[in-house]
């Protein structure tokens, strides 16, 4: 058994510390240890993006990153984007525009959209397509997802959210 690694990081704005086995994937740390089950495991090869979280603002497949790598980093997940009673603007946009069908890809899409709108508050259609094509919606409801991203940009502008 290898020597555990001590890590400290920010998880959705809360300071966290953990002693982990070096071979722990970030997604397992988030789901098993901290109960962040909004982060979804799917392909587990970094391809589909259902497990996307933001690490220091960068969209990252948490199934393909070792947990030791987030020591000192800021990790944001869909769980930190709002609560059941108060959804964040990106989450509301997805519900308003029907940006999901089965919903399994939605947490990753929400985080990808959050990162996109921080970098491009008023994204072009090409920018939206370029970013969103990073993740896979197996229901193929891409048109509604693209509309949701546009709506999220509107909501953030209208409501003056800092979005991060």
């Amino acid at each position, binding site marked *: *058994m*290898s*020597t555990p*690694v001590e890590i400290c990081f920010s998880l959705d704005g809360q300071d966290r510390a953990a002693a982990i*086995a*070096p*071979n*722990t*994937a970030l*997604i*397992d740390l988030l*789901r*098993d240890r901290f*109960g962040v*089950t909004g982060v979804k*495991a799917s392909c*587990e*090869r*970094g391809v589909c*993006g259902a497990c*996307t979280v933001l690490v220091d603002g*960068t*969209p*990252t*497949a948490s*199934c*393909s*990153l*070792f947990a*030791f*790598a987030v020591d000192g980093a800021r990790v944001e997940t869909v769980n930190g984007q709002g609560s059941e009673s108060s959804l964040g603007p990106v989450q509301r946009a997805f519900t308003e525009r029907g940006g999901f069908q089965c919903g399994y890809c939605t947490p990753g899409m929400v985080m*990808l959209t959050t990162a996109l709108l921080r970098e491009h508050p008023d994204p072009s259609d090409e920018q939206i397509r*370029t*970013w969103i*094509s*990073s*993740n896979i919606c197996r229901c193929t409801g891409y048109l509604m997802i693209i509309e949701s991203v546009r709506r999220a940009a509107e909501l953030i502008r209208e409501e003056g959210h800092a979005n991060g």
Partner: protein
Amino acid sequence: MRMLSHGLVAPTQRTIPDFDLRRPLTVNEAVAAGAAGGSAYAQGCTDLFAQFREGLRCTTLVSLDKVAGLRDISYDGRTLRIGSGAIHHEGARHPAVVSALPGLAAAWRQIATHRIRQRATIGGNVMARRPRYEMSIMCDSLGAELSFISPNGPCRLSTADVWDSRVPPGGLLLSVDIPELACAWFGYERSLRPLLTVAATVRADTAGGGTVRVSVGSEMHRHFTVEAPLGTDPMDIAATLPGEIGDAVASARYRRHAAGVLLGRLLDRLASEHASEEKSR
């Protein structure tokens, strides 16, 4: 699946074998740690995780994230040096790359997806030796030299050497060095992916001649590279591609023809760029 207090969870860690973690600060420390049998180097980890899922056994993981200098990119007017740890997103926008080879910068911006480009590295892409990854095709066309250091000292290999498993045991890729760029042009065509990808590098000489070096790949098998004097008909260049370029998906005849057409388009683009430059003078 396991039932925890917060519900059913899928423990992906189960598929990744236990290993000792080393986090060196220098290249020499990294190579010393990587010299042990069963070790693997890790940078962006994008492909490494896929390898673990495919059964990679690793007893020592050497994380390169704290090793200084591996992400550096520089251009001295002749050679473009790209550190193996350069992330695609940064590399494709780096002023040295844009200035030395605008065609490479444009091609580099198109590979993979936006999310993967922000995490994966050029070193991981080349060392993975996966036909569907594109940097090997570009590097071979450019005649890139891959600079390694191993427990036995430094060495320089070609992209083909990496594909032919000639990397010494414990070898760590330091940089991708693209030489002779003073009068070089690079173009890339991926519109026929997954069937076909064409990278072309033109190096002009002072006597008005030069060479065209063409690498042709697909998502199904490793790429092939051929070279011809500048001015050779693109279809004739493509005709020299080996028969192995054909497979069950597309015949060698088809791929040679398509490669010739795409190469012709690239060379037309080069001629058009030259014409625009002449006009603006």
